[in-house]
């Protein structure tokens, strides 16, 4: 049985419901207000996050190697990959579009996988430094995940619009499937990571340094 820092709800045997935020005794197993399952911490959070993360990394390989779409122009087929498309747009001088696709399809997913890996590693090492920064990193990671779908949506629109008989046709590629998989799997990975694990590493020694007492609320205006 793991012990929790004394200022946490888990140390009292209380669990916060993830669906409705009610604080209830974990012995109830189900939230008395909304009926969702209660856990002190997400079950097997680190292992499940890592497993999903590895899946995402593996899916990201075909997402970049295979074409995301194929253009059939007058009997000639041209495949374009995610990075190839970004480079082509850049050469044509479409810097804003190239940047949007690069951010959504490369920076966000890679950054997300790196930050989840870093968060898992820091928890596994029982790191007690820069906790608030890591909490913010987690929040940003969770927030930006859905934005990487942009490129798949662009392919959807292009495929639907460019259907000019035998002259010019755009077809979706395997990479569109792999990349959608990356987005979905990383979103699940971020959901499976329990940010409370970051703070659970504060043992009694760290608490005695006097930085942590029972909290006082901070207020702000909308």
């Amino acid at each position, binding site marked *: 049985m793991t012990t*929790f820092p004394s200022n*946490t*709800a*888990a140390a*009292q045997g*209380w669990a*916060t419901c*993830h*669906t*409705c*935020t*009610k*604080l*209830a005794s974990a012995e109830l197993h189900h939230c008395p*207000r*909304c*009926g*969702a399952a209660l856990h002190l911490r997400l079950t097997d959070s680190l292992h499940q996050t890592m497993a999903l993360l590895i899946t995402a990394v593996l899916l990201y390989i075909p997402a970049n190697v295979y074409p995301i779409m194929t253009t059939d122009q007058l009997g000639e087929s041209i495949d374009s990959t995610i990075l190839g498309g970004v480079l082509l747009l850049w050469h044509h001088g479409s810097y804003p*579009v190239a940047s*949007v696709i690069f951010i959504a399809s490369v920076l966000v997913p890679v950054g997300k996988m790196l930050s989840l890996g870093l968060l898992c590693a820091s928890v596994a090492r029982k790191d007690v430094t820069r*906790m*608030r920064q890591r*909490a*913010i990193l987690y929040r940003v990671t969770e927030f930006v995940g*859905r*934005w990487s*779908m*942009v*490129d*798949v*949506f*662009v392919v*959807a*629109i292009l*495929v*639907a*619009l460019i*259907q*000019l008989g035998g*002259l010019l046709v755009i077809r*979706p*590629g*395997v990479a*569109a*499937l792999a990349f*959608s998989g990356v987005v979905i799997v990383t979103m699940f990975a971020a959901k499976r990571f329990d*940010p*409370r694990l*970051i*703070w*659970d590493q504060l043992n009694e020694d760290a608490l005695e340094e006097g930085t942590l007492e*029972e*909290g*006082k*609320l*901070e*207020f*702000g*205006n*909308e």
Partner: protein
Amino acid sequence: MALSGRIACLECDLVLPMPELGEGQRANCPRCGHTLTSRPLDGFQRSLAFTLAASVFLVAACMFPFLSMKAGGFENAITLFESTLEIYENGQPVVAVIVGAFILVIPAAVLLGMLALLVPLFQGRNAPWLVASGRLVFGLSPWSMVEVFVIGVIVSLVKLASMATMVLGISFWSYVAFSICMTAAVSSLDRMYVWDSIERVSTR
């Protein structure tokens, strides 16, 4: 320590007193900075208004042409449904299902859930489906990607603008308005405030 009158931060599990907020106030966790809860200025009025507006715009977005393209004597017009159907017919059925779910099916389900939730809460009445609607709305809303789709459409328009004349249909503008109202409605719903309100009307 007693359980009643307390909450714990969802992101760091610090035990805190239950915040008593005035209208328009927000409470943050002192340790990790997570926004614990916020209280809207006007109860559920604004959320309900945005939800109703979003419903009207979503219906309109499904009824008219979405985009059309003119190039060298050819013209091709698509509806919102065709933007996912064509992927289905061109060899990537799974991608089509994913796109259709993220831009239409899940947003529509979240919208219906919000209507079922907000109409009774706005009137201060109880309804047998409040808990189910709350679970649906808060569980599914991360998977509604309407605003991401709007950015995707704009990127494709810029991409095609050099080679063809693009015509934006009524459905396109409706979808943009829908995404703005939907985002405003979803982000105006505070999880703790909504569930506290459900508890209040159901125990009365």
